[in-house]
């Protein structure tokens, strides 16, 4: 056995060790989520389900609903803005246009969330770029309130999620069989009809996975609602941080972190089943 599987144990051991450490860290979150909070102490008491019961209060429900709402808005607008860019990226005739589009749309992925969030703070602030320009042009007298609003948070989150959405959509568009489009055009369909009735339906699996990936990703966003929301817009991540580091209620923070994890996993499971079904249906047609 070892003869036919060289390096098996040597290569497996570090991976298993890493997996164990990761699982231990997640287990700690689970473990804290079922512990009693002792006010004024970082130590926790015995086993309890109180933290999960506590979620049932309206204030926490609102935070959860707001998290879903913001994530949904972000996913929808991200899709609407990313589709044209992805389409241009795949179908552009010239090589340099394609390269430029890839670079422009992908590099923001690697600048990190703090840099990107800070950039949006400068853009949206009351003395920020947008307000200065609008005032110079005498379109407004008083600065618009863009910071600390849900609108501002969504504007920033959409931009963050677009690189991922563009990658997923571009892959889907690249896989569309051009012969189907040509056939439709030959049979007299206008370019608009070809797009709406051939290209768009064929990229539906990509659209669906894009929406769900961005939705799940946005639900775990932290720094954008933290800094641009500034406490006025609370998502589940901000509530968990607040409970953990200001209230020092580690068990409840753990419960909220666990719920966020379950939501992310749930979205992914939803995506798997939805895209699977969709692909089957497309294959039949």
């Amino acid at each position: 056995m070892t003869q036919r599987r060289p390096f098996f144990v040597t290569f497996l051991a570090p991976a298993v060790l890493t997996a164990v450490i990761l699982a231990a860290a997640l287990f700690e979150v689970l473990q804290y989520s079922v512990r009693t909070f002792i006010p004024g102490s970082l130590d926790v008491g015995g086993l309890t389900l109180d933290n999960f019961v506590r979620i049932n209060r309206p204030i926490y429900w609102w935070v959860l609903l707001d998290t879903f709402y913001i994530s949904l808005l972000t996913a929808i607008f991200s899709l609407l803005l990313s589709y044209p860019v992805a389409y241009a990226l795949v179908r552009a005739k010239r090589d340099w246009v394609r390269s430029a589009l890839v670079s422009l749309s992908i590099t923001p992925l690697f600048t990190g969330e703090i840099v990107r969030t800070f950039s949006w703070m400068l853009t949206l602030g009351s003395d920020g770029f947008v307000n200065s320009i609008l005032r110079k042009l005498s379109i407004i007298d008083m600065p618009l309130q863009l910071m600390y609003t849900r609108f501002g948070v969504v504007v920033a989150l959409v931009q963050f999620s677009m690189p991922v959405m563009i990658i997923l959509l571009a892959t889907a568009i690249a896989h569309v069989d051009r012969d189907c489009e040509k056939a439709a055009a030959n049979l007299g369909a206008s370019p608009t009809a070809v797009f709406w009735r051939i290209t768009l339906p064929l990229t539906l699996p990509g659209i669906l996975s894009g929406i769900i990936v961005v939705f799940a990703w946005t639900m775990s966003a932290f720094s954008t609602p933290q800094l641009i929301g500034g406490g006025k817009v609370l998502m589940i991540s901000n509530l968990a941080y607040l409970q953990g580091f200001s209230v020092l209620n580690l068990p409840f923070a753990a419960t909220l972190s666990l719920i966020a994890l379950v939501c992310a996993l749930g979205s992914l499971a939803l995506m798997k089943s939805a895209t699977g079904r969709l692909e089957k249906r497309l294959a039949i047609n």
Partner: protein
Amino acid sequence: MRSFAFWSLVVAILVYMTLPTIVVLMTSVNPTEILAFPPQGVSFDWYVKALNYRDFQVAFQNGLIVTGCASTLALIVGSAFAWLVQRYQFRGRGLLEAVLWSPLIIPHFTLGFGFLLLGGAFGLQQGYVMIVLAHMVLVMPFVTRAVYVSLSNIDPNLARAAANLGASPFNVLVRIELPLVLPGMAGGWLIAAVLSLTEFTASLYVTGSRTQTLPVAMYNYIREYADPTVSAISAMLIIATTLIMFIADRTFGLRRVLAIDTH
């Protein structure tokens, strides 16, 4: 498609995507304290201030230590794991894969919180060990993926030919396979390093005031002061990561590593 309206729309969307970057670059060279538009001139005072700010210096060094250790560990463990997954069927493989890919889905604040609590259980909270472990786990999927893709592209006959000619499994690995996956490993390592260097949310949980990394130091600065020092740091980070990614794309074919297929 070729129409003027379509391309105007695409350009407008790209302006929205790049506007914040342009604004941050503009404010970083603006001499005035308040964030005024349009810029009143060009000065590099904020760069000097940022580079001389003690917290940023320490945080940058911390970040380099963490990134160096975390991405290198992720490279070693991730490459070995990619090799296993590509070559062998074994019991528990599905579970192991599920656990090691999961950091792509797990919210960073959940993961950071978990490592904070785990560190607490071993008296290692806010220490480098936990920070490095958290970063390693977060960036490893990217290395594993990069190495897996390059391994899959190797012609299996090369290894068979070498083995038939009498090369030991060790020799096949080191002299045939390793040189062929080296570009993938290097590309994966670079992506891991950039992601670790700019990671914020998990770092906020696992670092302390002495061990904070650059993004955490920037966050703490933003909350207290409103001057363009952070613009200067951001501008430097934007330029550095863009350059690294450009070079990586030219050298290792980053688009293939990230599986961005446009053809």
